[in-house]
């Protein structure tokens, strides 16, 4: 084998068998239930039969593919919930205090206001919209669903390094789900201090109705979600470092794996801080500690308890996690998009190594920019100036990535498939989301647009135009691998066009009303004279109509997803003619992923290699000798 030397140089042959032994141990523990009777252990057979029991096969499964699909389904369900919450927010902003269809009818028994939502209910809507979308949809979909499903397949492993831990990471999400849903029905209702949960609004039980009980459940729910992410990230890091197939050097890994790897590092380093902050707030709320309460403070006309804490401390701790979390939400999507664009341009990824370094650079800088959320918070303005510098610099790797994507498309042979369209949509929209970030990085400008709709527009261009488009690209791209059936391309394209148009219709004007000073998180802007103008009314109504249509357009993908799941045409092993390892096994892959662990001969993006008949060259096939010299192999070392 020509690459043996490469493989052993990286030392990744030995770990494979180690992990297999770990897996064998795990399986033998499960064998106590008696359904593994015929299974032999101890010899070097890597292939385990799939569990035959429905419960262990589909519910409490340790198979990374099943766990990934579990994350996918729960994430998509919460996507619907989060979307409906957003539509109610938009309705209120366009037609304040009017009757919200369905919602008002359901809630009228409690409100007794003729269908008009109470203002605190509006605060719950946007708080829970953001919480659900960030913690239950985007992060679990990108890292949980696609991270789980793809990492072992793309690096040529049979499963994660710690399959049981992996299963736990999913089942730790369920307490989070249940607590969060429960918070809607407790006295006072769900949390309403914004997804940032700034004290003292979040701290004092009577500060606002949602802080009475909902906030406690919110904190506990996020603690569980955080533990789940932590388990996942440890697993991903270990798996990627230890379980790569022979020949899969780090710089031969697909961008998706790179992105998920660095995301996992981000999570592993940032999450402990969020966890401690959540615990501190929980202690402040329940047992009367004073981490965030100033001396003798009083809220809601209640004479104050003792204090001695610092309110801004929460902001530092929270953003120390939550700024990296923004990158946790976008980096995997960037990786996915890189893979999709390269595949459907039939062209090697432009500047693979700079792309990797850019991701690493974003991750590193991501840790030293949290203060840009706090320019107006009362933090020392001199400190703000340093955060401004690092924030400006973080735009650079993003710019490099964008140029490289365009470079990949350039002179490619572009196939306009649905995943490709979403990936191009990602590039196009991410440019807007990235550029609007520069406005906020400039501290004096931030003074005007901080906490306005400009920010809301920015985050939605990054998180919807970016992450969500990436998620859609991933769903359309890997659906055949996940379920062995193809999704309908025509419906997919209609879905893309409508989503793209209505997405822009919904979110672009947020920049405009934001620069006009429209504050965010406000139940109606029209109490303010400078906002009570026909232009602002028009824009708010226009955005809401687009949001409703955007929501309606998603019915297409729901329909497409469900119908294709049961009745889509059977997918071949490699329907997109792609190079990466997950396409080198059956669709859907068997329980053990690969009958024989594949050997990797080259980097992931060898498309249209001269001298090769087809326009792709799977990583499992060596490069033809003629083109060996032409390949820009990554430098050794």
């Amino acid at each position, binding site marked *: 084998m020509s690459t043996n030397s490469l493989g052993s140089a990286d030392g990744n042959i030995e770990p494979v068998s180690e992990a297999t032994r770990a897996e064998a141990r795990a399986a033998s523990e499960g064998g106590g239930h008696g359904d593994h009777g015929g299974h032999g252990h101890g010899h070097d057979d890597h292939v385990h039969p799939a569990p035959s029991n429905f419960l262990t096969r589909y519910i409490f499964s340790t198979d990374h593919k099943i766990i990934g699909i579990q994350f996918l389904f729960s994430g998509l369900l919460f996507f619907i919930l989060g979307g409906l919450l957003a539509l109610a927010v938009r309705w209120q902003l366009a*037609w304040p205090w*009017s009757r919200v269809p369905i919602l008002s009818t359901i809630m009228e028994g409690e409100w007794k*206001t003729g*269908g*008009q939502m*109470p203002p*605190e209910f509006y605060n719950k809507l946007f708080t829970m919209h953001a919480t659900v979308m960030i913690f239950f949809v985007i992060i679990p979909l990108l890292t949980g669903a696609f991270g789980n499903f793809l990492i072992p397949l793309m690096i040529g492993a049979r499963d994660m390094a710690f399959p049981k831990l992996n299963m736990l990471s999913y089942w730790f999400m369920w307490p989070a789900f249940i607590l969060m849903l429960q918070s809607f029905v407790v006295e006072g209702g769900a949390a309403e201090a914004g997804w940032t949960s700034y004290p003292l609004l979040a701290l004092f039980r009577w500060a606002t109705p949602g802080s009475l009980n909902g906030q406690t459940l919110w904190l506990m729910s996020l603690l569980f979600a955080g533990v789940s992410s932590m388990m996942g990230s440890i697993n991903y890091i270990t798996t990627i470092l230890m379980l790569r197939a022979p020949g899969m050097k780090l710089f031969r890994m697909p961008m998706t794996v790179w992105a998920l790897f660095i995301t996992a590092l981000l999570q592993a380093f940032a999450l402990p801080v969020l966890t401690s902050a959540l615990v501190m707030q929980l202690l402040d709320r329940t047992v009367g500690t004073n981490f965030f309460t100033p001396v003798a403070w009083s809220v809601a006309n209640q*004479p104050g308890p003792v204090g001695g804490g610092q309110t801004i401390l929460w902001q530092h701790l929270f953003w120390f996690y939550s700024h990296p979390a923004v990158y946790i939400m976008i980096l995997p999507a960037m990786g996915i998009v890189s893979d999709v664009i390269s595949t459907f341009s039939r062209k090697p990824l432009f500047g693979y190594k700079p792309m990797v370094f850019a991701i690493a650079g974003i991750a590193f800088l991501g840790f030293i920019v949290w203060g840009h959320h706090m320019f107006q918070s009362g933090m020392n303005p001199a400190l703000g100036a340093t955060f401004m510098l690092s924030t400006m610099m973080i735009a650079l790797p993003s710019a490099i990535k964008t140029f490289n994507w365009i470079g990949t498309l350039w002179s490619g042979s572009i196939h306009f498939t649905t995943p490709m369209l979403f990936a191009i949509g990602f590039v196009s929209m991410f440019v807007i989301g990235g550029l609007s970030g520069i406005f906020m990085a400039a501290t004096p400008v931030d003074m005007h647009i901080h906490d306005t709709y400009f920010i809301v527009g920015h985050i939605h261009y990054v998180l919807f135009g970016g992450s969500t488009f990436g998620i859609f690209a991933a769903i359309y791209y890997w659906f055949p691998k996940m379920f062995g059936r193809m999704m309908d391309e025509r419906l997919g394209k209609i879905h893309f066009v409508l989503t793209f148009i209505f997405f822009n219709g919904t979110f672009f004007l947020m920049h405009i009303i934001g620069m006009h000073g429209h504050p965010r998180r406000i139940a109606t802007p029209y109490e303010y004279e400078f906002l009570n103008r026909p232009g602002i009314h028009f824009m708010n109504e226009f955005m*809401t*109509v687009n949001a409703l249509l955007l929501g309606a357009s998603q019915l297409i993908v729901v329909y497409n997803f469900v119908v294709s799941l049961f009745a889509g045409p059977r997918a071949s092993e490699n329907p997109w003619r792609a190079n990466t390892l997950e396409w080198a096994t059956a669709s859907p892959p068997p329980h053990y992923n690969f009958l024989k662990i594949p050997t990797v001969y080259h980097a992931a993006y060898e498309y249209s290699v001269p001298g090769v008949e087809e326009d792709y060259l799977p990583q499992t096939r060596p490069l033809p000798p003629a083109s060996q010299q032409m390949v820009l192999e990554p430098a050794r070392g």
Partner: protein
Amino acid sequence: MISSWIRRVGAAGLLLLGAGCGQLEGPLPLTYSTSIQAQESLADKPLLRATIQQRLTELFGPSPDVMRVPPGAPLPEGGARLAAFAILGDESAEARPRRVAFRTADGQDEPIRGGYAIYREQCMHCHGASGDGNGPTAPFLWPAPRDYRPGIYKFTSTAGSGPDSKPTRDDLRRTIRLGIANSSMPAFESLLTPNEIEQVIDYVMFLSMRGEVEGGLLFLAQDLEDADAETELSPEAVAEVAELVFERWRSAESNVLNPKVPRPEPTRESIERGRRLFLGEKGLQCYGCHGLDGKGNGESFIDYRSFVRAVFEGNPSREKILALKEEAEKANKKWGDDWGNPIRPGNLTTGQYKGGRRPIDIYWRIAKGINGTPMPVHLGSQLTSDEEVWDLVNFVLALPYQPDLLEDAQPVAPGEATAGVAIGSAGSAGH
């Protein structure tokens, strides 16, 4: 035009979402909450209940959405500013509501939104559709939002107490404009135009009068039998009840308590006289509730711990409030107001005054008390002259800036000789 088009497309979008069953536009119907059904004495008297309901409907309309202004109600413009659509007093019950306009000073007819619409938007989520202080936000507020139906208002300028001391329009206007300090009542001056505030005042008075008439009829019906319903609760008899209510409101403006002498300079002597009054010289027990240190923690009131436990700990609950009441009554302490809500005596050291900070506001609070609360009428009982009230006002206004006024203060026994003590205390006050 664009906006209605957009709304229609929006509605269509929701139809696509499968939402479109039933009516999409327009609010859901509102109903008045009613104490008629809850009245125990009427439990087995369906005819009486129905009759009261019918009389109320005849007078005030069936629901907040369809209002009638009863004949003789003391509302400006005949109540036309209550709503954009209204049936006015002299029209038949079958008359269709018609759109009303407000005649502005220059003689133009200008369609108005009406107090009802503004109230719905700004006030209802706390004060409730019926003005019963029980909107969806209300359970999470302390002090509790006002229930207008008994017709009692805390901060009034008129003589008397309880429902007899009706607020003038100016009293209501001030509360709406500036809000109430240390409560959740926001200041609406920057949110509503003066004209809109007048419309809201009309509507608050309307809700209050409706509630009072309802209460009056329930009181009447207590001792009646079902058979008497037609005779005893005839429209004429009900009109008399209503007229009593209207008369009280009508007379408010002429019943204002205007101090006969203006406030004297807050000299050290005046403040010292006020201090001694506060500490009980003439039998006033100010310190009993407000505390010897003025921080609102006096012996006559239920202790602060119990109050916090009942109000702020755990979920808002009627049971805990009732337990607090029981505890207070057992210990012979004050605890709440006439609406059955727990309250605290004012902390006089913060410089925040619920009823306003003008000397005349403080004068009214002291002279005629705060209606519906343990703060009693003082002028004419323990205090005999305006001058004494003003001394107390001067003391109260000085307290936040001279905290040593009440340093180690001890009660002054009524009738205790003044001279020696006064000099000593004045000395300490002058630190």
